[in-house]
């Protein structure tokens, strides 16, 4: 081996960024093309340091913009090898054009997205605006709640995305600063075990196979475009979910850590629940447990797989509940909120379904406190007791000034 392996302790103290960088190192990515942006910069810096010290053998290309980073990743992936990058916020926004191109060309690229607000007003802190901007881009999208998840989900991502039955790019989202810059204990995999889990990259339609020239990125108009998009969507909905489940199962065997398509916490006998993503899942779980001690049957549904949205599993999780609230961490810009809509849509045809209200929280890095969640669970219980929604349908959590709502 031309590069050096790294001896890791069983548990390292890493933040989400470094955990992601370590996972990329262990997967022995062939080309990382990147452009730094807060708060994902340390992923790129960490990887650069690995290269400077001979811990990675692949190419590391610092390009002139995020658009060029993803363009370069697309060229590299089409050439035939393992490819990854990282970004946030404005950089993600600049990448959006190429995100659609990457998925439409069925190229398994891994993108770590350290979620951050979108300007204006300019803001470097965490919310899910960038995540929501890319939600229809045709990428598989996994959500990390903590540095451990950010590490583990990278292995899942490569394994699923590069599968020849899938061949789709995959994002791993983590909360800016709250996950990316918060150091926690992260249980590690040994280099060999991690690499073996992901396996060798198996090229397909690779441009560097000169005996079999390929044409990537063709034109299709009204005669074929629809079929391409429909098939891709169908693959996302029917093939990806079982593949993610299989990867979760394999990963549990390897690490003992269990991930689920829908992360249910105290849901089976719950009356009320919040549905949320990112770091707020852990806070909500803690508060739900405290509510249980007060005799309120509270639970939490964590979104682990944002795309493809696991409709069936979500229906199953929701059907016994009486009242729920969705927590959207992005300004919905004139709608109810992505999570509200997805959840409402997935349960509309259920015979019994919970009442649903929508909350907008945490924009631009505003904290979601335990007190906020206590209030929220209390409100949901009041809805159950009254047999109807007692508050406006959409409310902001923790915003100063007059209460704002339109529904």
């Amino acid at each position, binding site marked *: 081996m031309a590069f050096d392996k790294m001896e890791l302790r069983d548990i390292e103290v890493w933040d989400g960024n470094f955990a992601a960088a370590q996972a990329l190192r262990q997967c022995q990515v*062939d080309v990382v093309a990147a452009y730094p942006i807060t708060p994902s910069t340390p992923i790129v810096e960490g990887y650069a340091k690995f290269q400077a010290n001979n811990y990675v053998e*692949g190419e590391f290309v610092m390009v002139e913009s995020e658009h060029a980073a993803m363009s370069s990743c*697309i*060229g590299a992936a089409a050439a*035939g090898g393992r490819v990854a990058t990282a970004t946030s916020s404005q950089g993600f926004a600049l990448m959006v054009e190429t995100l659609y191109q990457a998925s439409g060309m069925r190229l398994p690229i891994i993108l770590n997205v350290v979620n951050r607000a979108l300007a204006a007003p300019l803001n470097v802190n965490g919310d899910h605006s960038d995540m929501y901007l890319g939600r229809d881009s045709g990428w598989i999208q996994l959500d990390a709640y903590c540095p451990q998840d950010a590490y583990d989900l990278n292995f899942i991502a490569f394994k699923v995305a590069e599968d020849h039955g899938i061949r789709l790019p995959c994002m791993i989202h983590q909360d800016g600063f709250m996950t990316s810059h918060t150091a926690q204990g992260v249980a590690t995999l040994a280099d060999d075990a991690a690499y073996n889990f992901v396996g060798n990259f198996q090229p397909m339609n*690779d*441009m560097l*196979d000169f*005996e079999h020239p390929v044409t990537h990125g063709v034109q*299709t108009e009204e005669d074929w475009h629809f079929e391409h998009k429909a098939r891709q969507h169908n693959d996302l909905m029917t093939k990806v979910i079982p593949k993610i489940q299989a990867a979760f199962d394999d990963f549990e065997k390897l690490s003992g850590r269990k991930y689920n398509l829908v992360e249910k916490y105290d849901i089976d006998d719950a009356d009320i629940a919040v549905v949320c993503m990112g770091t707020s899942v852990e806070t909500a779980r803690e508060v739900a447990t405290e509510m249980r001690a007060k005799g309120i049957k509270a639970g939490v549904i964590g979104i682990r797989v944002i795309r493809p949205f696991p409709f069936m599993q979500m229906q199953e999780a929701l059907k016994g509940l009486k009242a729920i609230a969705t927590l959207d961490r992005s300004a919905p810009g004139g709608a109810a909120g992505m999570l509200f809509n997805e959840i409402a849509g997935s349960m509309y045809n259920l015979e019994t379904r919970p009442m649903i209200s929508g909350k907008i929280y945490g924009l631009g890095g505003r904290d979601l406190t335990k007190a906020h969640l206590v209030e929220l669970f209390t409100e949901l219980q009041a809805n159950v007791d009254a047999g109807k929604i007692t508050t406006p349908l959409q409310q902001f959590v923790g915003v100063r000034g007059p209460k704002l709502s339109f529904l």
Partner: protein
Amino acid sequence: MSEMKKIKNLKEFSTSADRFEGANLLCPGCAHSIIVREVLNATNDDLVLSASTGCLEVCTAVYPYTSWDASWIHIGFENGSTAVAGAESMYKALLKKGRLKQPERNPKFVSFAGDGASYDIGFQWISGCMERGHNIMHVVLDNEVYANTGGQRSSSTPIGGSNTTTPAGTHSYGEKKNKKDMVSIMASHHIPYAAQVAPNKWKDMVKKIQHGFSVDGPVFINAVSPCTTEWKFDPKDTMMLTDLSTDSLVFPLYEIIEGRELNITYRPKNVVPVEEYLAAQGRFKHLFKDQYKYLIKEWQDRVDANWAYLNRREEARV
């Protein structure tokens, strides 16, 4: 190092194996296909190609067909250069890791783009590729207009041309701004090789392409590509127009080594007046009306000044 392909004459050149098929949707008389074939025929090595969105791309890769018998990629309008640079990075990675399927091959990485995709929207991406030193060649198919979308001006469009976004009229002579000097800008990245070529001077062109393939690092080629549709001339006259472009010195042929040494590679025996070049094209028809005739003299003065400038640089070896 792969062996340089030897080409004796045009007949031999035109009968070498095609990796760009004649079966494509380009307009009759389009110079793009001639330029592309001359570039590809300059080498026997394997090719990894890209096209930015534009005439070449939409006319050669319409699903389920392809005109390319070589690895080819299109992503978008602005990033064809970076697509090939990404593939080149993967090549280097797999070479290091010993995972190339045909490690003995010597692939060439070439990006084709129009002037809009190079001078305008793709400018930053090309500059990035040049600065980073990728082993790629970027070839501009310079027809001085957004031809694929119906003739809008680009920053390569010359003064006085009538285009759909800068039309000539009773109160306008059309495009008001001078063409961007892209070759100089790219040469200023101090890349190993930058050159202007024309498909009529095929020996000069092949020599430059072959030199470009032989150097280590990025290469920038600007190829004049007369556009029968937007320059408005008869499709049978493409080569005549190309002759006029080079022999009037509107498109002088030269090269710049390492950004520091300029050589003029073609000196027409009989320099043609710029007026003849303009008169052969419908896009300049209005310049021959009395009110705009002064522009023809300005055109000639500008071309003369540029030629003098190139000569001064060549003499001074800068």
